[in-house]
Each structure stands twice: as structure tokens, then as C-alpha cells.
């Protein structure tokens, strides 16, 4: 009975947030289109034959950037901004006195947004293949499953990082500025602009200790069929989740003690 009620809770949360996201379908389509940075990067890489320096064929590189685009589409997180706005406007207050952590709402919003994004991302991929027919490939089921899983774990890592930053709203009103600080390393070290394999060896050894390469580079390499350490990648993703989750719980519990219910 209780299990059914929890299922019902999750289903209703997703259903309502999906209905809400459908109200913003044009906005979401534009967001999907705005995520085409990997395609620009592909153009820069191939026009300058940069792929030769890292021993990746042009086809594999184009698949990598398409996959980077897909991974990015399904791991975009904006919870720090939403929470900051809701916190400043006093909208968090009613959520805080409900028997559900408000971050579940934001989590459901993100999942619903990803579901809404899906068809737009497919359309963009369709056009990509029209212009790059040699890049068409069908990953096998195991790889597809593992790629979806690693993309979801990447989303979870980013969601937790941003949720921790969002909780800083309890101490400082403009916590999203801290998120902006993280934007630069995320952009350069995640594999969105260049596969991490292209970095010098001494830099790579450090990068692989951070969570960034497991956000885009690892799932994109996995899906595109490039060589990657699957168990190592998943291990690091799980390790980062295990580190971030207790940190989030601690900051959340300390932060709510500081909450002043501003704006309400």
C-alpha cells in the first residue's frame, strides 16, 4: 500500500511537471537548439585537421561531438538558479512545510524537461545525420543502456553540485554566482569543447580526478564507441555521487536552520 502511494507520488510529480514543461515547449526547443556548441567545435576540429593529433578519425570525432550534444541535452541542470529565485521570492516557504524535500520538485522538473527536450534533440540529430551521413551508426543495446546510465549519473552529479550551491542561498542571496565560477571548468574540462583525451598527459592525470570528465566526456565516448575505461568511469561517477550526497544533506540540514523565509 505504502509502496503504491510512493509510486503514485513519483508518477504524479512527474506528470504534473511534464504538463507544466509542455507549456514552455517553444522555450525548450530554443534551449535545445542553443546547446549546439559541440557542432561548432566539431567544425573547428575537422576544418583544422586537429583530430589527427589525437588519433581519432573524423567520423569518430563527429560521433563524439553528436554524443556530447546528446549527453549535454539530458544532463543540463539549472536548479541553483530556480532555487535562488524561489528563495528570494518566498516561494520556497510553502514547499518547506510539505512532507517532501523541495529538491524532489526541482528534480522532477528537470526530468520532465528532459522528456520534453527529447523530440527536439532527435530532430537536431536527424539534421546532423543528413549533413554527415557517414557518421550514422547504431550502438548495440548494451552500450546504449550503459550510455543512458552514465548520462543519468552525470545528470545526478551535476544536480547534486548545483543543489549544494543552491543551498548556499541560505547564507548568501546570490548563490548562483558561485555556479558561474564552476561554468568555466565545466565548459573546458567536461569534454564539451574538446575530448579530454586531447589534453596533455600531465593535465589529464589531474582532470580525471575531478568530476568534470565524467559529465560529458565519459558518457559521450561510451555512446560513440570511442575507447574508454568503462568500469573506471562508472566507478568515478559513483564515487563522486557518494561524496556529494552526504555533503548536500549536511548543507541542507544546516541551511534550513538559517532560513529566514525572506520575501514571505
Amino acid at each position: 500500500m505504502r509502496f503504491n502511494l510512493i509510486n503514485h507520488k513519483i508518477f504524479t510529480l512527474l506528470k504534473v511537471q511534464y504538463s507544466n514543461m509542455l507549456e514552455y515547449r517553444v522555450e525548450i526547443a530554443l534551449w535545445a537548439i542553443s546547446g549546439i556548441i559541440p557542432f561548432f567545435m566539431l567544425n573547428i576540429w575537422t576544418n583544422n585537421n586537429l583530430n589527427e593529433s589525437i588519433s581519432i578519425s573524423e567520423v569518430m570525432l563527429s560521433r563524439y561531438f553528436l554524443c556530447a550534444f546528446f549527453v549535454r541535452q539530458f544532463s543540463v541542470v539549472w536548479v541553483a538558479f530556480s532555487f535562488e529565485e524561489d528563495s528570494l521570492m518566498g516561494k520556497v516557504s510553502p514547499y518547506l512545510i510539505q512532507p517532501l524535500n523541495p529538491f524532489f520538485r526541482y528534480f522532477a522538473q528537470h526530468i520532465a524537461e528532459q522528456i520534453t527536450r527529447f523530440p527536439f534533440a532527435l530532430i537536431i540529430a536527424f539534421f546532423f545525420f543528413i549533413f554527415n551521413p557517414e557518421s550514422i551508426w547504431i550502438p548495440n543495446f548494451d552500450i546504449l543502456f550503459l550510455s543512458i546510465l552514465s548520462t543519468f549519473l552525470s545528470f545526478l552529479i551535476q544536480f547534486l553540485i548545483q543543489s549544494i550551491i543552491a543551498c548556499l542561498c541560505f547564507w548568501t542571496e546570490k548563490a548562483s554566482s558561485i555556479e558561474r565560477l564552476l561554468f568555466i571548468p565545466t565548459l573546458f574540462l567536461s569534454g564539451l569543447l574538446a575530448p579530454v583525451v586531447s589534453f596533455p598527459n600531465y593535465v589529464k592525470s589531474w582532470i580525471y580526478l575531478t568530476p568534470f570528465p565524467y559529465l560529458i566526456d565519459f558518457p559521450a565516448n561510451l555512446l560513440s564507441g570511442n575507447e574508454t575505461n568503462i568500469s573506471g568511469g562508472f566507478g568515478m561517477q559513483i564515487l563522486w555521487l557518494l561524496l556529494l550526497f552526504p555533503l548536500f544533506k549536511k548543507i541542507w540540514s544546516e541551511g534550513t536552520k538559517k532560513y529566514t523565509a525572506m520575501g514571505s
Partner: protein
Amino acid sequence: MVKNIIDVRNLSKSFETSSKEPSLKGTIKHFFRRKTKSLKVIKNISFEIKEGEIVGFLGANGAGKTTILKMLCGLIYPSEGRIVVSGYLPYKRKNNFLKNITLIMGQKQQLIWDLPPIESFYLNASIYELDKFEAKKRIKKLSDMLEIHDELFIPVRKLSLGQRMKSELLAALIHEPNILFLDEPTLGLDINAQRNLRKFLQKYNEETNATICMTSHYMKDITSLCKRVICVHNGSISYDGDLDLLIKKLSPIKEILIVCRSEEDATKIENSVFTVKNKIKNEITIEVENASIASSLKTILNNFNIEDLFINEPPVDEIIGKILIKKDYEI
């Protein structure tokens, strides 16, 4: 014997605030060295509220009423003292406690702006772990009580303020809480909507024996719903008790409006022994102590040429206004 559902002992709350001097110099100083100080907004207050009571919190802006409500519902942590609500420490926000309470803040909404309210109701119902059948039943019951039906299927952004407020109430009450914290629930509503909301709250209290703690700047909300008021002045309780008793104590006079046959007759009354509140042409209002009403009426009827006469209580707003600016009321 009715049990206490809210027990507050020596409760205090302090906030850290920073101050900034005006001018560019002040701004630069503020940027480099921020002066912060601790401001005690609630000072060592104690009170109890019984199950089923409707209690109004009165006080001027910034007196601390809303802060008290926020601590009672667990939204903010107290700095000192102890609060027990329905057997729980509110700031721990245990799920069983949260399922028993609700907080409604006028003009602050929890409904999803772009969707019809019905979607938010089902969402809230699932959060409170109500099954679909039970949720449907409660939505029907509450929408009948609140007299909203078609509005449930119109996006929130297209509803009027009154319809939105009713929907907010429905969303906040779907889990049938035992304790309602209402912060300015009628803010911005027109007179009819205010009256309907009061009627609804009265009915909800009668039917469910829910405890209601409310703040409002509309005195009609307080006088028509609350038998008991707690007056808050600068973070301390200046009065806690029966509203009627307070009004009687603070208003030992009545007003008599006399309509004279001519303006000269009104002038004669003005020049007599009575305390005149105002005079407009042949109408004059005098203030008479409750104890001397009969003798004053006799004097007026015997000595002056009058057409009509009305005895009025001074407006409750005026009386309560006095409470807001004074510190202590001993009854």
C-alpha cells in the same frame, strides 16, 4: 477538558542584519566592512493555544506576528525557548507534524502558475500520500465549501485574485490539517471575497475542530473569527485574552449621533456640557461614558429639540488601532 495543542515557552528569535549609511562613502564602507548586528525580533514570549481555538495575532507592521507564525509552523528556527505544536518540535519538520499543519500566506502562492489549480491539488494530494479516490473526494468537498468549480480547470494565471486565493486555500487544506496558520489570508481581496473566506474558515473550524492562528490587518477578519487575540508589540506580548473584554476595557464610551431640527439646536448642544466629537450642520455626534448613557439621553430629550437619535459603538478599527501603538494592556 480541551487540551493545549500549541505550547510556547520563553520563545525568542534574533536575526542578523546589516546597516548601511547613505551616500557613496557609505556604500564603499559597506562594501569593504559590513556592519552587522543581531536584532531580537521576538522577546521571550510564552502562550498556549487550545485545540479548536481561533486566535488572532494583532500588531503593527514589523511587530513580530508573522515571525511567530513562521516559528510555530517550523519554517524558521527559534533562537531561544521552546515550542511544542501538536506534540512535535516544529523546526524538526517531521513528516507526521507537517501532515497536520498548513500555512497560508496572502499573495504568496504555491499553485503552479501555468497549470489549472486541479493539477496542483492532485500534486499536493500525492505529496500528502492520499490515494486518487480520497483526493477526488476531498477536492469535491472543499470546492463545494469554497464555491469554486469551473475555475479548477482554468490556468492559475487567468484566475482573479479571489478565485486564486480560494484555490490556494483548497491546495493548502487538501490534507485536512488540524492546525492552520494564516498570514494575512484576505490581503488584496474585495469585500465579498473577504466575507466568503471568513465564512469558509468559520465553517472549517466548526466541522473539523481545527485550530486556527491568524494575522490580519483587516479588523473584520479578527472580530468575526477570533474570540481570543494576542497583541504583539515590538516582539513582546502586550495582551493575550478575550477580544470583547479588551474592546470593552479600551472603549468605555459610546457615541450618540443626534439629528436636530435646526442648526441652531445643534449649536445649543455643542455649547452644553457634552463632549462633542463632530458637528455637521444639524447633526452632532457626542461621546458619552457607558455609565451615564441613560441620564445623558434624558437630558437631551428634555432640553433639546431633536428629530432623531442613534447610539453607536466607536469603530473597532479605532480601538484596535490604539492597541497597536501601546505597550501594555492590563485587564
